[in-house]
């Protein structure tokens, strides 16, 4: 609708379109001048990797990788690396892990910041509320290397968690960091991600809550509503649209399953359970066979699917957001 309206408008006035554009460019030459470094950055670091004659860009995926020769001398091999990828069981294992972990995160991680924000909203004393928030948000600013370092000390065989568990149950210590059990690995990923991100995630919901008209609570309380009624009928409807939009956006990110976290936790024992597609691509690019064409093919495959997912999710989120907010 809007597009066609603008189009018609510009057509009507288009008589001296080029001259006007030129005049506008000259008039705002400072703005355009200031934009040059920004555009250069995106051209070099985002567009050159896509298409580039010197290094090949995504075309690398269609040529035979040669370590010693420049890209122009590699042989075209068509879809060879995509076929290779298709037949590799460990590729599909990484794909499956990525999707499973993402769904586990949607189920168990996603609701937690919402619950936390509702709980925090029920704390009447501002100072106490701010204290809680300060504590919960802090881990978000540490790198995954630091978090994994702290986790390892707690979870290792002679660490505190095993110390408490063996003292209480008398069982043998459990190796949380290197085992191939699905439940313990998923728990480790989800709990550590919550430890790092729950406070940060709740900020956006707290902001939505602060937009709720306080008189709604007062009116409801006068009418005899209790705490629970207020949460269900006022607070939750107030953040529902935010939650839906974030949920949809999260669905668009299903193939991006937290590289930093998993990369620092993965090892030979738990690889089959927690290695995601990004970690897999990294492994083939830099660690395993150094077959960079194969890694590029896997990366391109992921990027294309990811693009479709993100576009779909964002389109949906925009529509839902508008329906719910306005």
């Amino acid at each position: 609708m809007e597009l066609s309206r603008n189009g018609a408008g510009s057509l009507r006035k288009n008589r001296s379109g080029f001259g006007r554009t030129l005049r506008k460019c000259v008039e705002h030459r400072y703005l355009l001048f200031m934009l040059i470094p920004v555009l250069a950055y995106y051209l070099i670091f985002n567009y050159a990797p896509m298409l580039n004659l010197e290094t090949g860009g995504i075309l690398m995926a269609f040529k035979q990788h040669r370590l010693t020769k420049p890209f122009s001398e590699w042989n075209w091999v068509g879809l060879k690396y995509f076929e290779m990828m298709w037949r590799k069981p460990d590729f599909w294992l990484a794909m499956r892990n990525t999707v499973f972990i993402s769904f586990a995160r949607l189920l168990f991680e996603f609701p937690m910041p919402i619950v936390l924000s509702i709980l925090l909203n029920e704390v009447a004393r501002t100072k106490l509320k701010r204290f809680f928030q300060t504590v919960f948000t802090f881990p978000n600013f540490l790198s995954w290397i630091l978090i994994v370092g702290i986790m390892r000390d707690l979870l290792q065989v002679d660490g505190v968690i095993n110390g408490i568990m063996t003292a209480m149950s008398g069982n043998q210590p459990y190796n949380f960091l290197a085992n191939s059990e699905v439940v313990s690995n998923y728990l480790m990923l989800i709990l550590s991600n919550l430890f790092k991100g729950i406070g940060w995630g709740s900020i956006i919901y707290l902001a939505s809550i602060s937009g709720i008209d306080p008189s709604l609570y007062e009116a409801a309380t006068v009418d005899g509503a209790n705490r629970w009624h207020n949460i269900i009928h006022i607070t939750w409807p107030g953040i529902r649209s935010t939650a839906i939009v974030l949920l949809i956006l999260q669905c668009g990110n299903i193939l991006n399953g937290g590289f930093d976290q998993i990369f620092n936790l993965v090892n030979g024992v738990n690889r089959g359970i927690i290695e995601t597609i990004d970690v897999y691509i990294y492994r083939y690019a830099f660690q395993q066979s150094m077959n960079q064409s194969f890694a590029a093919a896997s990366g391109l495959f992921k990027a294309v699917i990811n693009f479709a997912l993100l576009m779909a999710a964002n389109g949906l989120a925009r529509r839902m957001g508008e329906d719910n907010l306005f």
Partner: protein
Amino acid sequence: MKTTTAVIRKNRIRKSMGDRIADFFIHAVLIALTLIVIFPFYNMLLISVARYEDIISTPLYLFPKAIDFKNYSMAILYPNFLRSAGVSLFVTAVGTTLNLLITLLGSYVLSRKNLPFRKFFFYFILFTMYFGGGLIPWYMVVKNLGFVDSVWAMIVPPMLNTFYLILMRNYFQSIPESLEESAKIDGANDLRIMFQIMVPVAAPIIATIALFYSVDRWNEWWLALIFIQDPQKLPLQLILRKMVVDATIDLGNAMMNAMRDSHIQVHGRSLQMATITITTLPILMVYPFLQKYFTKGIMLGAIKA
């Protein structure tokens, strides 16, 4: 002051039994969560100041038997530790400055309604959030630019964060146009309007984004992992990764000699925790400022994404 206490007292009287039980449970859950979040940090500090013999002799070391800072003096002797701290500081200082400058330029220009080809530029940038060439093609480009074994590999490739750019652009858009118009009437050009009028007005979002960038640069490890082999140029995070994730504590000569000469025994865990504490410290120091700005900054920027 008097009125607020009166209001609180009045509310207290009005609170029903059910309300008080709910209050109790909510606070109990939040306090339990707080303890869970604090405990790993408590454990980190505890182990970092523990003596070797105490860790060895106590199966469940939960309370300090002694507070001993020699683990810290040993951690500093780890090969290239101080150098890598210098690298991290350099990357953070220079990187954040460049980050901020280019993000300011981009976000301000894109927020101007009279920018020619405004929509095109915006989608040109936005597209990169949805699609990329992938890891390997990106790596080849950065490698060809000569960033291998250079500390600039941690500064130039991440010079712009599209998400922060859009946050800042949204903030600039929310500033009333009348401010710019009055400056224009006075004959100021775009460059002057930006630096003398808009930047001071946007101080809260600039502070927020500056802190985000500085934390990101301090936490940088991945770029160093793929581009830097020279042990003299590694950031602190990567030294830590070597100690913690690869668990290869190849104690350097300086460290071995110091330990032998003084008959000091240091537990590997203590060494790791001391290093983690040192690396966490700068973030802890800027955190109060972060805390002050980020909620406000993010919300102001997120008005219309």
